[in-house]
């Protein structure tokens, strides 16, 4: 290393990804969307735990679950795993 080279303290430590991906909506990926039947929901939380996107959220203050379609990719895991079949995957009727 020549004396002109930068020392390790002068070199940028690493590349940095500065923004939270919460600002990147993946919801436009989906073809089918989950539709819930609140009557059938027992708030067992299985859909909340199994959604790979983390877009089904438990709202304790309202005592119900909410699906944030702006991140939902339409995989259908929530519908497949719901023990009471409270979720069905449907084609949106028109543009969301």
């Amino acid at each position, binding site marked *: 290393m020549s004396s002109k080279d930068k020392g390790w303290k002068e070199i940028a430590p*690493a*590349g940095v*990804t*500065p*923004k*939270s*991906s*919460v*600002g*990147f*909506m*993946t919801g436009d*990926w*989906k073809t089918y969307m989950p539709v819930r039947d609140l009557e059938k929901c027992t708030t*067992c*939380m*299985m859909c*909340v*735990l*199994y*959604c*790979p*996107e*983390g*877009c089904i*959220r*438990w709202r*304790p203050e309202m005592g119900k679950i909410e699906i*944030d379609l702006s*991140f939902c*990719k*339409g*995989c*259908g*895991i929530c*519908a*497949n*795993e719901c023990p009471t079949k409270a979720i069905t*995957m449907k084609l949106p009727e028109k543009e969301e």
Partner: protein
Amino acid sequence: MATTQEWKFTAKEIAEKPDLFLPGHRACAGCGPANALRMIMKATRGPTIVTEATGCMEVVSSIYPYTSWAVPWLHTAFETSAANASGIDAALRILKQKGKLQEHVDVIAIAGDGGTFDIGLQALSGAVERGHDFLFVLYDNEGYMNTGIQRSGGTPMGAATTTTPAGSVMPGKLQHKKPIADIMVAHNMEYVASATPYYWKDMLQKVRKGLEVEGPAFLHVFAPCPRGWRSESAKSIEYEKLAVESCVFPLYEVVNGQYTLSTPSKLISLAPQKKRPVTDYLKGQGRYRHLFNPKNKYVLDEIQRWTDERWTILLKKAEQNA
């Protein structure tokens, strides 16, 4: 060791815990590893640093300028997630020695099966031998998925991948899966376990135990990849259950060399009639479709034979320690 946060994981408690692996990541719809990581991060107990090797979960969570990590996170080269964890652990120790850090910080290293079974194995072996304090999470989607579904040492026999295509030359991959957990047990480490998100409580308890160990711990997490497995995205969690019920992926813990079956697998050992045939798990996955052609029946038979043999060996190990 004292835990910072009480860990009676109930479904509601987990649901209420904020995500540390955030929405907006670019994993495919129905990605098993993405679900696994999101859940695993719910079992953390306090300040945590994550380091991750190249692979799907690293790529989808760090697409510039976005990050899906709500904790300090370091990307590292494909082969070095455990080496990186060693460096972080060493840095934390020095900071503590110098009195610049008081609280305990957990270190989690994450890698796929390519980054663990194959290319990351020597770094992992070295880090464990040196006794660094970290939890290594292997998310096993049974292939090099991020670069186009190539076979890895974790790909099971018979699976079609782009480097083991099923056809007239071969019926998918010819070799069985490498016994990675046993290889880690042979390192005489304190904690090795297998887990899968369908059995979420079991998995989260194992993550927490792995973090509590003062030294290296290893968690083998089975996580389906609908893209690489040519399976329905809605069925990723279902395949996790079928893999356990058919004993293709048994759940167990190895504490200081002592094997114990975890409840879902223990129940199958107590009621062997509940053990499902491997075909229940294999069917429906496009990567195994060719095996259902009568000319490849011998491969199905071999997968069943090998699964039974591995299961019997595991039962013996667990019994000896009962």
